[in-house]
């Protein structure tokens, strides 16, 4: 009997190791700062993570197929200034501008898919190229200067509330819900896992592998553009350097959430946990007035420690299963 309990315990840690890390962080900061657990601070954290959270759903899709998308930060930048210019110089309605940029982001993703599925360029290289080029476009169309002066209604998207919940948080939660349902309940979702786990077996099982690759990069492009528009509305100004470095934040969060870099394994529910860990670390350390450069160091170390813990926990779990 003692044996089975310990197996159960190991399974629990193996499945939810990263959740324990999150809970430990919350307890730690709650002890160190009495403002940490107040409602407005909780929503503050959620709002801070919403942009990277939205991107990380697309990134999860891509990583599950065994790929990677480094261009997400640049798509954020382009959609941010693109929507800004369409509203100011183009005089378009904010909704129309947003739709156009969502399409543009999706097209960027489809281009990634074309390079990767059709031309067989390794994902890292293809999306690295797109990352650099798209950032170039963001600077070209703005001349390197910020764009501002929009319809005041537009800022509601990023700054408004539904009840007490900030709108970006609602959008992030909807995106996560979409991702979770899609991956768990659709054929394409199952095929995404299949392609990442065993591409050849998937092909021989009748999966259109190329279509799946187009799909995940298109979703990633769409999500990044959505994140860019929300970001634009929140900061109320289109910065050509917006979203710089977001690809690394998103990858960090997704990997923290236990998605395998080689593809085929991971759950979107745990990606939320990864996103929250990143957000809580920033927020908690800021509240404790920890120097920003120190924060960066700590975040890097937490990533390594959390993933090390997770893989240790997994090895315990697999021992329990094989035995």
């Amino acid at each position: 009997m003692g044996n089975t309990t310990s197996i159960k315990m190991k399974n629990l840690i193996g499945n939810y190791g990263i959740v324990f890390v999150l809970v430990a962080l919350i307890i730690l900061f709650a002890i160190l700062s009495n403002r940490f657990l107040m409602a407005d601070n909780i929503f503050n954290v959620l709002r801070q993570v919403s942009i990277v959270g939205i991107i990380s759903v697309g990134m999860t899709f891509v990583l599950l197929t065994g790929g990677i998308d480094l261009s997400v930060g640049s798509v954020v930048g382009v959609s941010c200034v693109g929507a800004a210019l369409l509203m100011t110089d183009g005089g378009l309605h904010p909704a129309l501008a947003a739709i156009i940029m969502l399409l543009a982001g999706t097209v960027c993703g489809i281009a990634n898919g074309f390079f990767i599925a059709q031309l067989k360029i390794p994902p890292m290289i293809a999306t690295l190229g797109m990352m650099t080029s798209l950032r170039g476009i963001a600077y070209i169309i703005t001349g390197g200067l910020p764009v501002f002066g929009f319809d005041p209604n537009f800022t509601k998207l990023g700054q408004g509330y539904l009840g007490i919940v900030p709108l970006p948080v609602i959008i992030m939660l909807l995106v996560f819900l979409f991702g979770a349902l899609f991956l768990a309940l659709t054929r394409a979702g199952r095929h995404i896992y299949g392609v990442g786990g065993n591409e050849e077996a998937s092909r021989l099982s009748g999966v259109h592998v190329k279509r799946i690759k187009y799909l995940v990069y298109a979703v990633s492009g769409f999500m990044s553009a959505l994140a860019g528009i929300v970001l634009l509305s929140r900061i109320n100004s289109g910065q050509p350097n917006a979203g710089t470095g977001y690809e690394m934040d998103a990858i960090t969060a997704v990997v923290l959430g236990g998605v395998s870099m080689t593809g085929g394994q991971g759950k979107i529910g745990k990606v939320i946990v990864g996103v929250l860990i990143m957000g809580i670390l920033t927020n908690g350390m800021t509240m404790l007035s920890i120097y920003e450069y120190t924060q960066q160091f700590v975040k890097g170390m937490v990533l390594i420690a959390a993933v090390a813990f997770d893989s240790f926990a997994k090895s315990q779990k697999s021992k329990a299963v094989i035995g």
Partner: protein
Amino acid sequence: MQNCILEVRHLSKYYAGVKALDDVSVTFREGEIHALAGENGAGKSTLIKTLTGAITPTGGEIVLEGQIYDKLDPVGAIDKGISAIYQEFNLVPYLTVAENVFYGKEMMKNGLVDKRAMNAEVQKTLDEMGIKLKPSTLVSDLGVAYQQIIEIVKAVAANSKILIMDEPTAPLTNTETQVLFNIISNLRKKNVTIIYISHRLEEIFHMCDRVTVMRDGKYVSTRNVGDITQKELIADMVGRTLGEDYPQRAKPVGDTVLEVKGLNNDRVRDVSFRLKKGEILGFAGLVGAGRTEVMQAIYGADKLEGGQVYLNGKPIRIKDPSKALDKGIGLIPEDRKNQGIHLGLSIRQNITFSSLKQAMTGPFINKKKDTAISEEYGKKLQIRMPGINQLAMNLSGGNQQKVVLAKVLATKCDVIIFDEPTRGIDVGAKQEIYMLMRQLVEEEGKSIIMVSSEMPELIGMSDRILIMHNGKIAGELGREDFSQELILEYASGLIGG
């Protein structure tokens, strides 16, 4: 009585509650070829892994040349003269043969790697073993058979006294197997002890001196190969008497279902044949003869440059596997791990992977239907599993193969191509797959193409056998003409073509 070189005494390995190895004692004599036999999960691999130091035993001891150890470590095992050759090779593809043999212990001269000396040394070993191969060849340019030979050369170069071979002939053709057997005999003459694991019993009888049988982690028996029959050995392995006969067919075959005319691509030349309803059509030939390539082309997995496929008399165009499945043609690929199973998905997700359309309600997968379908086929194929939601990686090879079979059957296809359906699976699971194939053709009216390198299985199961040589069909044999010799003559190009 020869010297005992290696002995394990009361060796055990427990994983949380499960005894993978349970109080096993065996002695290995110097210079003998000692077979380990048993079904999958019998504990052979666990025993081997304790000898190579890959795992630490829970109890017992290992006596190597009189020295008692309670465990070995991987580096120590090699230093003490124990080497192992697994089914997956540990070679670096972009290095040469000689560089691989000396990998990690390169010969040095003036602080630089001395390629010339390494090449010369390897050449000497290759000559001694009678193998025609240049030490400067890149490993990536070699086929499986030669890669395996390099592994053996590596072991010989490391002065191994004990060489463990795990299913060494699984990827080899008959000719290559013969070469391997010659090498093994040579090694025996040099007093190297060989521990030999194989599912092919005829090899054990052909090559080995003694055979130890294991079952459920326990030691069953050690016998001189000369003293027992295949039937007795199988009885020891399965713990019950099992007919190694193939199920007999009762019903006659029907009309032509699938016709292939003039199939051509870079590996296949002008292949034409017909498959009848309810028939099991065997494809024999050496590895590389083009059998798998024909199947992949029909299934739409490989390019087809010329030729026409007819299904029930109507010409069809199959441009990818999904189209083939739509038309009712399924394929069970030869390489289970790389082409068949999704190890990271659950059994349920694997089984319905190709037939999800049946489990949908609107755009979403209906978990009830999904579970019902996979449970139905799990039961039909008698997949032994802790639960339908277990990951496929936790299953034994035979059960994984059944999952792949279930996946294909769940698409309800009428023509099923089995490519090496029983490779690397145990006797019991093999028997079950044979029964299933019979049931599919006789009771469900399916038609089967079976590609196999195991002659007894081809002869036992097929209604007709086509033999391929060099990308072409070299001959066709009806049931009354089946003979191992004839098939081999066609396959090696002696007759036909």
